[in-house]
């Protein structure tokens, strides 16, 4: 199968604000703007889970967001990675003790990269994405491998429909 690894040259991100204070969110958006311009790395902010490869989550996730986060995570096609941005997304940060905060994205969906900071700066977010790319690539290889095995197993079994 293909080992061209286009994936890491074209990571499309999906950003979701799961109960953050906006600080990290605007920094995520700032990444797109001329001064940081993540499109240099082929990054596009798609805003649509079906098109996204990297889910960037900010904030500590509150009760209502739990379902939403899970939902958009499920809607992303494999391979995908999750980057938790800011300390709230990592642990709940300063809001950790609030009654409505779940406390960290990893309590809801698996997180691959944590970007610390309050608020995380654009440069840190870029670093986070770069780190995520390696994981993404790993996952893709695993996926193609798995698909091949599955396909050959299916053919061996002579399965139809």
């Amino acid at each position, binding site marked *: 199968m293909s080992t061209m690894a286009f994936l890491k040259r074209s990571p499309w991100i999906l950003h979701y604000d799961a109960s953050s204070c906006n600080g990290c969110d605007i920094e995520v958006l700032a990444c797109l703007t001329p001064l940081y311009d993540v499109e240099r790395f082929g990054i596009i902010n798609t805003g*649509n889970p079906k098109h996204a490869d990297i889910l960037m989550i900010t904030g500590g996730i509150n009760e209502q967001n739990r*379902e*939403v986060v899970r*939902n958009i995570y499920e*809607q992303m096609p494999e391979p995908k990675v999750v980057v938790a941005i800011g300390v709230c997304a990592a642990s709940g940060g300063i809001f950790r003790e609030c009654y409505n905060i779940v406390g960290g994205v990893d309590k809801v969906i698996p997180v691959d990269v944590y970007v610390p900071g309050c608020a995380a700066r654009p440069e840190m977010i870029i670093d986070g994405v770069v780190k995520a790319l390696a994981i993404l690539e790993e996952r893709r290889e695993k996926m193609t491998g798995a698909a091949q095995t599955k*396909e050959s197993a*299916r053919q061996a079994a002579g399965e139809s429909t």
Partner: protein
Amino acid sequence: MQTLLFLILFPILVACLLLFVKRTALRYAVVALSALAIGGASIYLLIRYAFEGAVYFAAPSEAVGLAMVAIEMGLALFIIYMGAKFRNYLAIVLAVIQAALVVYLETTFSGNLHAVNNLFIDQFSIIMALIIGLIGSLIAVYAVRYMETYHHHHPEVRDRQRMFFFVIFAFLAAMFGLVFSNNLMWLFFFWEVTTISSFLLIGYSETEEATRNAFRALVMNLLGGVAFVVALVFLAATETTSGGVDLARVLASGETAVVLIPAVLIGFAGITKAALMPFSSWLLGAMVAPTPVSALLHSSTMVKAGVYILVRFSPVFAGTFAGFSVGLVGAVTFVVASAIAISQSDAKSVLAYSTIANLGLIAACAGVGTYMLVWAAILLIIFHAVAKALLFLGTGAIEHRTGSRNIEDMEGLIVRMPRMAVMMFIGIAGMFLAPFGMLISKWAAIEAFVQVPFGLVFIAILAYGSAVTVFFWAKWMGKLVAVTRNRERVEKGFFEEPWAPLYIITGLVIAAVALFPVISSALIEPYVLGIYGATARLGEANVAIMLLMMALLLILPVSFLLFKRTARHLPAYMGGRTATPDLHFAGSLGLTREAQTRNYYLNEYFGEAKLFRPGAAVCIVLILASWILAGVAL
């Protein structure tokens, strides 16, 4: 000759027989067998006369003519009776005027009312006969089952099925007579019969609305009838130069200026019958009738009588300003009706408006009347007849199964009634998509209009008109193909559904596309060649390409196999909200709501209220203009 007479007389016989058949099963047998006979006869006609050009037959004239006048008077009396009963005095007035004119004609010009040959057949008549014989009789077959269910669903409607089928078959006979008549008096007689049939069938349910709409149809058609008689009077009066009531002689007379006036008047009759603007409202009102009636009378056959006569006279129209004007009526109707169709959600209304639009397009071609356009017009008649019949019958079947004929309710038909959805899909595709017929005709029409002086007007109208056409058909198609989840399938097995006519018509739609080069070269081109001495034909390379596209369309479903295995199914994107596959989502206020996808109707721009009046006004002006121009030409 025998076949012609058989086609005219046999349906009358069946009609009378059906007056006495009460049981559905028996009726089905009778109708099916006669349909077989009629269809067979029309195919025989094709084989027998296709390569012979125009063939004329001297049928007995005196006695028949007298009988016809007698029947016409009887019909006039019937109209007067009905008009009195329902207090529609306009109908009475028109009927009286018409009867008086007929009497005047018969008495004053009795010597001039002879045609050398009363019947004839040429390729165009064959095409029309095939449409009537195949589509018409299939619809009749379909109607038997339909009417049974209809009365099941509408217990309040009086069961007058015997009358219903009598009229249907009488109508078929009249249609055959209409396309075979060379004597314009005969033609007029059959013309009137279709008017009355239509009146009876529209009013079938006897509700107030139905009666009102039936009278509207009657009045408008009578108006056309009056114009027709006036034309006859004029022809009779100028018998020596114009050729009198002999159609062949009239068309060949060469005295364009003289013939133009009756042509315009008969064209006006055609306009009313073809429900062009401003007379479109009768056809819309006719949609209250049971669906087979809509299919039979108001899309596939009767309205075709209107454009048939226009196409017949298009050699007269060609190159005249009056003809141009008539063509413009058609063109304006085409664009306005197409635009209004956008704002309709009732399937039958959309079909009705689309019918009006397409008849407009045919009329536009006929009015301008160059050989290429006549070629396109006949092609349009064929494709429109098959596709529209399919759509009407399909809509009827869907309505009976799902209880609604609103397009919105057809959402996900591909899941609920897959076979029906595919048939509807083919029907709609037939109306506007590339490899299918209507588009070929449009294409031809554009290429033809380019070469006509002032054809730019038509091209501009056509360009806009086809753009809006794409919009309303595509959104309907979209409704059909939406794959809704968790919807029950309400369709039975292939042979369990009483849809045999539908399957056959679907086959006809596809056959028409696949065979259109043959149809064109065997029927249309010889006809056009015979009249103009020149004919249009599509480039061979293009035909090959069209066939290629058809083939691709058939191959594409293979991709289903390609994707089936590995794809993971995801629910639709709902902004991240918890949602079920059938599009219910957790909404505000703690409510679970359903995401609804509805088509756009753009009422603000394309509403009936907004467009009808201006469109009708323009058309009235154009019709008057056509009269004046014809008068001026004289």
